[in-house]
């Protein structure tokens, strides 16, 4: 979005160019620079995007052509049977459910907790506020290490337990700092007048803080959701003996590392076209299709959420 100021600037610049035309004659080295500049950005952008496109066209093209390596730039013989056939890949749907549910539940609880705690730590009258806030913030800067963390989780009974995906993520110090800073930028008068009217802390939080904080909460929600969807380590380390709790990322990692014939993965009692399954199994198509399913939520959500992502990194500049 262009701000009014930017529009004005642009107009002024155009005006300036028109009146000072002779000054803007392009020199040869400027042209060469521009060409290389454009070229670099075009190539890098293609490098960033092409792999996803390549994966996608290979999952919707004719499987025998894919197998011969003939689908490189555009799809041929478009069909979506591969995606339908995924239904009969063992455990995949279960992992999908685990990933989706942890993303939704984990993010919702994290956002609620961050908003509430962020609000509480702005209250100067709290008993021992400074100490508690510092204790929360310090946790960002150290960790005991992977093995002590693992031993702690197993002591708490959070190994091979779905709750291990949800509970540890509820208190997120960085997000708490973001919300706190945001609340401190809201005019105090709103809260004060509500307090005078006899509103309780909970009422103020629900009726004033929550609605006003929505922009920042949207930002942390999106980062939280992406983090949850992508998380792989907790599944790898904590769920060692519960394959039914593996996340989609973990499942994909396992499939990618398996030998090319994945026929053992298929459940026999499937009602999908068996020829599709056969052509899919014998190689890379199934791996590509599972990869695509894993990356698709991010690719779909991304364009809509981009402005939140970008405001997110700018918030990184603030401090507690």
């Amino acid at each position, binding site marked *: 979005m262009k701000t009014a100021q930017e529009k004005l600037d642009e107009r002024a610049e155009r005006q300036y160019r028109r009146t000072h035309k002779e000054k803007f004659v392009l020199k040869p080295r400027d042209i060469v620079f521009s060409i290389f500049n454009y070229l670099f950005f075009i190539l890098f952008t293609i490098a960033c995007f092409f792999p996803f496109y390549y994966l996608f066209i290979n999952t919707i093209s004719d499987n025998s052509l894919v197998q011969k390596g003939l689908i490189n730039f555009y799809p041929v013989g478009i069909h979506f049977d591969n995606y339908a056939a995924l239904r009969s890949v063992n455990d995949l749907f279960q992992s999908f459910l685990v990933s989706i549910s942890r993303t939704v539940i984990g993010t919702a609880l994290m956002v609620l907790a961050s908003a509430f705690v962020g609000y509480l730590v702005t209250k100067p009258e709290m008993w021992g506020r400074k100490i508690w806030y510092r204790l929360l913030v310090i946790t960002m800067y150290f960790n005991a290490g992977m093995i002590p963390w693992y031993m702690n989780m197993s002591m708490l009974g959070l190994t091979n337990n779905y709750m291990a995906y949800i509970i540890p993520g509820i208190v997120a110090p960085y997000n708490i700092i973001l919300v706190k800073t945001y609340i401190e930028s809201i005019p105090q008068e709103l809260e004060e007048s509500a307090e005078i009217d006899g509103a309780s802390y909970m009422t103020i939080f629900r009726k004033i803080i929550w609605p006003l904080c929505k922009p920042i909460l949207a930002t942390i929600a999106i980062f939280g959701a992406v983090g949850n969807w992508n998380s792989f380590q907790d599944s790898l380390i904590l769920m060692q003996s519960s394959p039914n709790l593996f996340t989609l990322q973990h499942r994909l*990692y396992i499939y990618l590392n398996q030998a090319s014939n994945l026929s053992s993965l298929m459940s026999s009692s499937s009602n999908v076209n068996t020829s599709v399954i056969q052509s899919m199994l014998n190689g890379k198509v199934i791996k590509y299709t599972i990869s695509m399913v894993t990356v698709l939520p991010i690719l779909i959500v991304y364009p809509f959420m981009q402005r939140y992502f970008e405001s997110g990194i700018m918030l990184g500049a603030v401090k507690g």
Partner: protein
Amino acid sequence: MSSKEKKAGMISHVVRAGAIAMVVLLFIPGLNPARITKMIGDEASLLTSGFFYGTLTSGMGRAFTKGWINESSMILLFISCLICCLGVITAAVGACLTLGNLKCHRFANLLAMIGSGVAALSMTGVYIAYTQVAATSKPKKVEPVFPAGIYAVVIIALIVFAVALISNLVLPKASKEMKMKMESPYKLFLMLLPFLLLAFVFSYLPLWGWRYAFFDYKAGDTLSMSNFVGFKWFTYLFQNTATAKDIVMVLRNTLIMSGLGIATSWLPVAFAIFLNEIKNVKFRRVVQTLTTIPNFISWVLVYAVAFSIFSTDGFISSIMVNSGAWSQGVNMLMGNSNTWLKMLAWGLWKGLGWSAIIYIAAISGIDKGLYEAAKVDGAGRFQRMWHITVPSLIPTYCVLLLMSVANILSNGMDQYLVFKNATNASTITVLDLYVYNLGIVGGSIPLSTVVSMVKSIVSVILLFVANTISKVIRGESIV
């Protein structure tokens, strides 16, 4: 406030301390009253025993089918533990509410009495379960033990009960129309308390796990003074030639990869500056959008992408084979050559566009007047870039650079784990991956704890140093 209330307030400190002790007890596996046979894991705490029946009875299938233990006694044990946990939680809630006014305080004492009473009574269930298990036909296999935890729970619960009772006897009766109330400092604190507990349990409690570094521990053992070994594992790390070699290799990989990261940390700045030189706003938008996507996919997916492009039947091999240049596909992900540069390249592919955003935003914040003034003075395009844009990005760059120096030992594990294969283990294993292989895969808990611990301490020191440097030079702290 009357003198009686003051006295009761003093007494209530004991109730609170007792409630804290009971809550802590829930987490200590060594004092788990539910461990009535050695078949119950020594990692299980009272909380685990009370909430996860599966964990409590894991490994008992044989004992149940053979009839050594009657399953009903385990169910009795489980229910008793659950009731005990609920009792402790009730008592803890009561202890929290003792901070309120007279009416609230009296109610809180009542809650504490109920909770601790229930917790103490639930131990009879545990005791009955113990007597049933002790009467097993196979004492050698089942190994019944009398859990010392029962005493701990009963004693603390009775103290809390008695003190709460005394406190209520001391306190005057509250008038009927009085309402339960609490002063706002305490109210706010109690609202925050659950979250503080979560932070404590998941961020501070793991530090307690550092004790494994000083014991001779194998999975399933108990920690007791008999297997305390002091600093044995610390010296072992350097005296054992095999591990010492590993450590040198791992440190080399870690430092080189982090070093390459730091050496290329100016690239996002350059990316932002050159992108800013492109005047076509739409083109800039598209570039920015598409180059930030890789940042939001996991390393597993980056590997999937790498697989689709560089594997034996991936994009490059397909093109080369179909054009006849290669006789057969080559898996470029295998092999031990240039691993560090490849990892750097993947890191840049994933992070470059994203890291540039902060600089792009900084550039848009530069005063346009500066450029105009420079133009009037006859400065060319490159002079303007070098003398205006670059200097205004330096402060941001310095902060991020210092942070990456502080994180020199922590380059994460995901990237290296997914790209690891049989051929490149010696160049790709970084510290975090080494700890994972050693502790989680290999099961050497003490040794890997030592490495984890040293790494954490060094990282904190580095962060502190970086922060001090920043304070001295820029007069601003970075954390």
